[in-house]
């Protein structure tokens, strides 16, 4: 297991390094000027000074290593300090990744925005899984029944309709026609009593529903295919031949085996729903990290965009690793390959 793990880890680190370099290079090579948004009355000398103060006059490799130092050493140290309250070294003069538009440290605004995204994304994923797995199993077990027909149709629809359209349809139905739910997400809302908790649930319903529907559609298709594949295997026939009841075969043998690829799929899907949340947050005005990215892009805030994109890359690589590990634990055959 340890050997298998270290092999995976050995691949993950260079991957991240190359991605960080690629992200840095793309943003750096682009014809873009941080001072272009400033008023045209500012003379060129001042513009040059602004660029110097941002460190833009340094050569490419120095800026890249500076950014790496800030991102991999300084920012984690700051986070540790904030969590534990300890002071490590000279924390005041430590260089931080700062936003070009707000001038506050990028990591601070990410930490501030992260809870909203995590709540919406996390809940929708949990709901999506809880809906998808039973539907997939029943669909496969009763293949071609009316339940399966409807289930596959709905999942095909959910998988094909883009989330930005489902979101708008929900707003039209539940906010405009029925006026049950608020169409925008109020992030300043505090939960103090039952009625404010109820409001919080109401305002989270639609964003969670949109993403949950999309995730459930994808997962149930996958679950159905996986169960179907297992139902035709020899061990099911053996189990049936020795007189096991269908229920026991399905729940004990088939379910366990068909969960293998599904669990990997669930782990691999986590980063995609974070990027999917970019669109959902935009529709419902949830001020999570997806919206932060869009505002960063619209104001050409390179350090912010760089850090956020890299954060998404870290998520993808981390969950790939988790998927590998989980698969290795669940299926001992994998380790020996």
């Amino acid at each position: 297991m340890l050997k298998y793990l270290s092999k995976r880890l050995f691949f993950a680190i260079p991957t991240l390094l190359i991605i960080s370099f690629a992200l840095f290079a793309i943003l750096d090579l682009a014809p873009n000027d941080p001072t272009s948004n400033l008023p045209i009355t500012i003379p060129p000398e001042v513009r040059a000074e602004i660029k110097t103060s941002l460190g833009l006059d340094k050569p490419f490799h120095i800026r890249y290593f500076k950014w790496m130092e800030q991102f991999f050493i300084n920012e984690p140290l700051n986070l540790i300090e904030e969590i534990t309250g300890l002071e490590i070294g000279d924390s005041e003069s430590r260089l931080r990744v700062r936003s070009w538009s707000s001038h506050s440290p990028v990591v601070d605004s990410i930490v501030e925005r992260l809870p909203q995204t995590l709540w919406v994304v996390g809940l929708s994923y949990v709901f999506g899984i809880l809906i998808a797995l039973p539907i997939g199993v029943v669909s496969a077990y009763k293949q071609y029944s009316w339940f399966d027909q409807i289930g596959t149709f709905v999942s095909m629809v959910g998988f094909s309709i883009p989330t930005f359209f489902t979101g708008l349809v929900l707003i039209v139905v539940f906010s405009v026609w029925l006026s049950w739910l608020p169409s925008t997400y109020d992030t300043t809302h505090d939960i103090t009593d039952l009625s404010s908790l109820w409001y919080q649930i109401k305002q989270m319903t639609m964003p969670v529903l949109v993403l949950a529907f999309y995730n459930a559609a994808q997962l149930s298709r996958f679950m159905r295919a996986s169960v179907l594949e297992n139902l035709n295997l020899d061990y099911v026939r053996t189990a049936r031949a020795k007189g096991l009841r269908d229920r026991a075969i399905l729940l004990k043998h088939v379910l366990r085996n068909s969960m293998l690829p599904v669990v990997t799929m669930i782990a691999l899907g986590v980063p995609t729903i974070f990027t999917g949340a970019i669109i959902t947050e935009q529709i419902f005005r949830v001020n999570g990290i997806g919206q932060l990215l869009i505002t960063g892009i619209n104001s050409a805030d390179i350090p912010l965009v760089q850090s956020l994109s890299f954060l998404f890359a870290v998520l993808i690589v981390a969950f790939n690793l988790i998927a590998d590990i989980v698969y290795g634990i669940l299926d001992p055959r994998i380790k020996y390959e």
Partner: protein
Amino acid sequence: MKLENLARADLSIQQAREHPSPWMIVWIALKSHKGALVGAGVFSFIVLAVLVGPLFYTVDPQLTDYAVRNQGISWQHPLGTDNIGRDMLAQVLSGGRIALAVGFAAMLLSLFLGTVVGVIAGYYKRLDGPLMRLTDLFLAMPLLPLLLVIILLFRDALRDIFGLEFGIFILIVFVIGITSWMQTARIVRGETLAIKEREFVLAATSVGTSGLHIISTHILPNILSPIMVSATLGVASAIITESALSFLGLGFPSDFPTWGRLLYDGAPWIGIDSTNWLVRVFAPGIAISLTVLSVNYIGDALRDAIDPRVRNK
């Protein structure tokens, strides 16, 4: 003698069943899936409508007429008008043209890249490792943020070179193409590895056929079916990606709106009385959804048709 011929005929039938030609696949898929048949019908209708429709419905989608802004459905404007008086039906038709053009062009680019990478990785053992690592690397990229960033950074530069509409078209096709070839490459590599071991490739190698020639005349024709499935599903995902980019305001501009952009422009008016918002949201939204849904149904049926486990049931 007769028996031998029979056996040979039987073998060729069996081979045809195991390795149906691409057109056979389409036939099998449409014959056995009702969904695919309906999907093909709907998709043909949409393609015909956006291609031929503007020839009959000759209203200029860019014509702004403040006198008739925010109008509902009428004989003059079958889908009403938007907030600056542009005709919605004309916009949906022309938006569909661009959306489908982007979808097909991006799919072709991604298919080309995926096939080249996949065939080379599968055929030349020495390049297999590096090319597959490259594929893994691309799969680990945060694609949507990356797409947004690239578009933001290069939009203006390309606009200056190729003009407003064509510049953004090239950019979007390019970014979608280079970020979606990985699945195709993996599938093509797997198929190439399998075909490479077959006797006819060995025979071709033994008479001194060059690698390039073997790939083009022996391998590619034999892996056409999985490539076709990739192509179908690729169109659907390219259309979704383009409309998502436009919906975030980073795709096509309002002057050349695609379905995604029409949705983006219509969304802020939701719930505001007498603004024709219902049509402005639902017309492009349903257009995108129906297109993608029908293409996905066709793709699903094709995938089933090339899968011998499903086909021989």
